[in-house]
């Protein structure tokens, strides 16, 4: 601590240069924070995917549906303990711009397989009892000011009822909250039976995808293979994968988000590293004489080296913490506005720790070269040059 004043004074020697460097570090860590949150938004499904959950979809694509009869055949496969299904409804509220991720589900089994969707007991019971009931994520309910008990028209851009109507009148019976905020709090669930019975006869009894739980995640590959083998060479072949792979595939429809984020962050950090290393190098070169004086007074080579490294670490830490702090603040402010598009948008604690580690690493790397110069500085030579 007693050297902190010395370090701070050295950094404040050229205020503008130091502040500009801190600014560039701040921008780098601001980008890191925002991109981390963005990556989280796209890959949240992957992270929360259960290791013991598999997803079976039509072999051709996710948008092709499968016969409902597959339900029992999948359930019968050895190692499968629970099966449910869901379908993409293409829903919206009143106008197409009010898009809502809506799923007709087999509620009883669905909520067993997804225990992370937390619903108060009485609302859960009400939802289960009302065939024309719905369960909405809390963010969706807040957005439209929906209350439990509201009767709401939900329209579909894909399906038409037997009578030609595109509107399903339902009552909001439950509002769910994803545990630890890791699920999608903007979705809407309706009962499959209610949905199925309203459809024209020819398109009834189809399911979008099946989700199943297995008794042992280690057996997942064999079980997936057994399921797909059952439907091989049929008119509707299937593709079964882990929920993680399914969610990753879904997220990667817009590109490999992880790789994009890593690429951008690497470029930004590399630039920041050059800027900081240049600042530190210049700062040490300008102070050659002073560092020699410190050594003359009895500061050892190591002590002078550590002082230079502390300067570098301090400058990176100040810039980094400001950047991450600003990112956190922006995410809080923008999070609500973006909730409709990015339901899961927050700065994960893990990435905050990575940010702190990066500050330390970049501080040390940026300071390494000038610290080496300070270490090797020969007092007599430096004083002679400075005289």
């Amino acid at each position, binding site marked *: 601590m*007693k*050297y902190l*004043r*010395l370090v701070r*004074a*050295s950094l*404040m*020697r050229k205020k503008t240069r130091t502040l500009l460097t801190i600014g560039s570090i701040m921008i780098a860590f601001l980008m890191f924070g925002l991109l981390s949150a963005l990556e989280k938004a796209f890959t949240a499904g992957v992270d929360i995917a259960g290791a013991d959950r598999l997803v079976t979809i039509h072999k051709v694509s996710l948008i092709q549906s499968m016969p409902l009869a597959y339900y029992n055949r999948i359930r019968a496969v050895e190692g499968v303990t629970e099966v449910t299904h869901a379908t993409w409804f293409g829903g919206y509220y009143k106008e197409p711009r009010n898009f809502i991720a809506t799923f007709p589900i087999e509620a009883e089994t669905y909520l067993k397989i997804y225990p992370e969707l937390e619903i108060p007991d009485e609302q859960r019971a009400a939802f289960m009892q009302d065939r024309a009931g719905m369960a909405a994520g809390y963010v969706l309910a807040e957005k439209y000011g929906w209350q439990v008990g509201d009767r709401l028209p939900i329209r579909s851009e894909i399906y038409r009822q037997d009578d030609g109507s595109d509107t399903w009148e339902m009552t909001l019976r439950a509002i769910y909250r994803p545990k630890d905020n890791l699920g999608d709090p903007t979705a809407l669930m309706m009962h499959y039976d209610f949905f199925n019975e309203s459809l024209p006869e020819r398109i009834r009894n189809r399911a979008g995808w099946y989700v199943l739980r297995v008794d042992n995640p280690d057996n997942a590959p064999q079980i997936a293979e057994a399921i797909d083998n059952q439907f091989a060479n049929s008119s509707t072949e299937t593709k079964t994968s882990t929920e993680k792979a399914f969610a990753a595939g879904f997220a990667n429809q817009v590109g490999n988000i992880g790789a994009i984020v890593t690429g951008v962050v690497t470029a930004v950090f590399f630039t920041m590293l050059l800027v900081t290393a240049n600042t530190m190098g210049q700062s040490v070169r300008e102070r050659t*004489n*002073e560092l020699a*004086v*410190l*050594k*003359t*007074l*009895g*500061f*050892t*080579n*190591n*002590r002078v080296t550590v002082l230079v490294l502390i300067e570098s670490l301090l400058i990176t830490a100040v810039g980094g913490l400001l950047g991450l702090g600003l990112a956190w603040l922006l995410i809080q402010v923008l999070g609500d506005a973006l909730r409709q598009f990015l339901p899961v948008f927050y700065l994960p604690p893990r990435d905050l720790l990575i940010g702190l580690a990066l500050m330390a690493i970049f501080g040390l790397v940026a300071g390494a070269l000038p610290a080496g110069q300070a270490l090797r500085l020969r*007092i*007599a030579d430096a*004083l*002679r040059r*400075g*005289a």
Partner: protein
Amino acid sequence: MSSVKIRGLTKTYMRGSERLDVLNNLDLDVKGGDFVALMGPSGSGKTTLLNLIGGIDRPNSGSIFVDNQRIDQLSDRQLAHWRSRNVGFIFQMFNLLPVLSAERNVELPLLLTNMAAAERRSRARTALSLVGLDDRASHKPAELSGGQEQRVGIARAIVTDPGLLLCDEPTGDLDRKAGDEILELLVALNQSQGKTIIMVTHDPHAAERAQRTVHLDKGRLEMDAAA
């Protein structure tokens, strides 16, 4: 009071492929409490000799004893510790850290001790008052005159109470009046506190204040005269 004994001291520099013999088999004795002026033409090896006595450069051969401790064989780390306790350096260009106040500059050598902050500040203040600058403690070097800067340099050199003060042209960058004041201060430190002082100077007027003048030329001791 620190005594200095030098035997067979040789220092050679390489300038490109050219070999420069800066000090050549030099012997010198300085008694504890002496005030010695080191004179000679430019390039005669005065500053090099001062650097070697202060342990900030190493000889090619020969030995240097300060208070009977041989310092030319100490490691860099040991030399740094030795300097912090035993030697005070006073430079021609003062070499103060421009970003620190006078008091913080004087406090610098004390950062290497285990002293509490309050004691460090108190000692720095005492050193500044010894050189007559206690009212300038909070001023930065740029806010001081050359003479005042050198006083701060002297306060920094004596704050750890070393027995040996090494001065490299301490009045070289000052006008006559300020230079005289600095010399007065050095004489006082020598006489009242018994500091051994070795002062490199070009100025015969400054050398007159020393008890003894040593002349160097081409790396050899040419003349050794008591005042």
